[in-house]
């Protein structure tokens, strides 16, 4: 079988596929139900997946429900995403002596960890990984730790048949079908037959598929798959004008609506913690009585006051400016920095915002008048007399 080829497998075939991946040395993980949410976790069989579970999502709302059937992928996305497997929320970068001799490196050495096999990532989550690749792999310097974790991972994507009310992947061009970035793509077919159309995305994927019982996909299977994905796309209600949003937001820095959002936003950073593309991190050192030095990298959020700290104070003090930084970065300046959108339309920031701020609604308000509303607050003073002493502070580049 070749890349682009299709087949069907049943639930037993899926179990054998997971077993074959484990047998081949992969650390098999997939979506599992944990503490009332669907989260990445270890799996050994398809029974570990969210069997018969659906998610009900809305702004500030996420609940799991039992569907009464035994389908595996009738949910959208949970708060956790696969980015955390490759870019861990907290990671030790190195240890050294007090005089700088490195005693341990972060980067997993060859063979020191098992490569990851993900069974049931969502198309939008693969799109998010591609966005992170732009940041951590494709710049002038490659993040060796991210690269090492990413290099051998096997990805089986589960295309979306049941989007949530918070989803807007169709606007961002990331779903509900997967377009790339996978070894195998699964689509769960309608009915209780527990059958899946599988598309091959790589030679490695083909090899694993050929190792388990499978049948050729007949035209009715492929039509059923297409119908399922088309109905999923049609069920998506939220939209973002992705063609124009980057430019419109860039012209809306003084829009009064930022202050209105700030009246509701708690600056809690939940949106940044659940976002699968947020990559900001803090670097911190610790030491102990032996003198050993340890440097860690930890996820951070542009909603934290310290995120923009510069000697003497933070640049972005108001909640309004911090929300604006987050949203304009995601949808606008990400293009300038990495030539891609930073938003994949997964809707996590909408569901997990404790006050239900809906990115799609806020964008619609801010861009409704092409961003030409009057300024929220006046521009900075135009005359020198309004300024403070100019040569006093630290100045200088970093």
């Amino acid at each position, binding site marked *: 079988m070749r890349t682009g080829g299709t087949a069907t497998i049943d639930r037993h075939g899926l179990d054998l596929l997971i077993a074959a991946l484990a047998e081949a040395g992969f650390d098999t993980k997939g979506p599992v139900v944990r503490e009332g949410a669907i989260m990445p976790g270890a799996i050994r069989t398809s029974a570990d997946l969210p069997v018969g579970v659906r998610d009900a999502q809305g702004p500030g709302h996420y609940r799991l429900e039992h569907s009464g059937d035994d389908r595996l992928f009738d949910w959208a996305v949970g708060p956790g995403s696969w980015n955390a497997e490759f870019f861990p929320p907290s990671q030790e970068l190195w240890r050294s002596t007090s005089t700088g001799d490195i005693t341990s490196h972060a980067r997993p050495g060859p063979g020191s960890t098992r490569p990851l096999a993900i069974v049931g990532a969502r198309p939008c989550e693969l799109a998010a990984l*591609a966005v992170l690749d732009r940041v951590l792999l494709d*710049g002038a310097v490659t*993040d060796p730790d991210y690269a090492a974790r990413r290099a051998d991972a096997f990805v089986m994507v589960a295309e979306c048949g049941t989007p949530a009310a918070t989803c807007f992947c169709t606007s961002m061009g990331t779903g509900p079908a997967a377009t790339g*970035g996978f070894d195998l793509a699964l689509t769960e077919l309608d009915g209780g037959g527990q059958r899946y159309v599988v598309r091959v995305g790589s030679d490695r994927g083909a090899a694993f598929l050929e190792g388990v019982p499978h049948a050729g996909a007949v035209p009715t299977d492929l039509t059923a798959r297409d119908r399922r994905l088309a109905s999923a796309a049609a069920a998506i209600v939220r939209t973002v004008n992705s063609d124009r949003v980057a430019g419109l937001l860039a012209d809306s820095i003084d829009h009064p609506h930022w202050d209105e959002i700030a009246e509701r936003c708690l600056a809690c950073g939940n949106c940044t913690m659940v976002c699968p593309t947020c990559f900001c991190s803090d*670097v911190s050192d610790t030491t102990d009585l032996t003198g050993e030095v340890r440097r860690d990298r930890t996820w951070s959020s542009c909603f934290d006051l310290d995120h923009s700290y510069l000697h003497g104070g933070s640049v972005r003090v108001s909640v309004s400016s911090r929300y604006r930084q987050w949203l304009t*970065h995601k949808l606008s300046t990400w293009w300038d920095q990495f030539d891609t959108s930073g938003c994949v339309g997964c809707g996590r920031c909408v569901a997990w915002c404790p006050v239900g701020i809906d990115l799609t609604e806020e964008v619609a308000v801010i861009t409704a008048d092409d961003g030409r509303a009057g300024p929220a607050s006046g521009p900075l003073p135009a005359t020198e007399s309004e300024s403070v002493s100019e*040569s006093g502070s630290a100045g*200088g580049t970093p």
Partner: protein
Amino acid sequence: MLAETAAAVRGRPPLGPEPLEPVPHRVVGCRKETDDVTTLSLESLSGATPTFAPGQFNMLTAYGVGEAAISVSSSRREAGALRHTVRDVGPVSAALCRARLGDVVGVRGPFGKSWGVGEADLATGDVVVVAGGIGLAPLRGAIDELVHRPDADGGRVFVLTGARDPSQLIFGDDLEAWGRAGAVVAVTVDTAPRGWTGHVGLVTSLLGGIDCDPGTTTALICGPEIMMRFTAKALVDRGIDPRRIKLSMERNMQCGLGWCGHCQLGPYLLCRDGPVLPYGGDVARLMTERER
């Protein structure tokens, strides 16, 4: 595409030094510039000194305390140790300022865009350098090369520097040396004690006293953001092309590699796209937008 990405990663050339691991350097010189500013001269324990261009910065590690972005203040005309001029404004910079001869400091870098000294647009023509406080540090290596330009074709160098008060002025010896080498050097302070016979006023007030040719002038500015904004505006008002006015912008930096996200200024990651940016274009606008 994941499969291609993985292959591409595996196929990449060796990465060289680990990008997040500092290279130990020994402190071979400490010079107290003011009550809270110290210049450290650093030599790699391995003997290899990285090349840099004036305006670039390194991430310096005070082992056990942390890492901070500090501009290189050496000149490429000086042999030997790498200089950094540090102002004590937080735990890391305080620890760096406390470093003694023989101590070990970590260095990663250099990072970022330089002033472009040595490139065509600064080879000839007038250059106006304006510094506020320790903003002179990243300009030091640039000025030193500019005043020794081999074929400047009549282009002059003006160095205008200001500080809060005379005790905060740095690089006095250098200012004299640049003057001897032909630069027009002017110094001002915001407030002066009894006995100060020099200029008093904001650094922008020195601009009126120089006769640079706006048609050929390139300006290099480093200092507090508000000082840079008013200086750039004053230079534009004198007819200097905003694209030929370069500023060294500053934001929080924690990696130098474009990965930590802290140094964003609108579309820019300052560690990667800056710190030196032209005033013309986005920057003039970004500087007038609140809390960017």
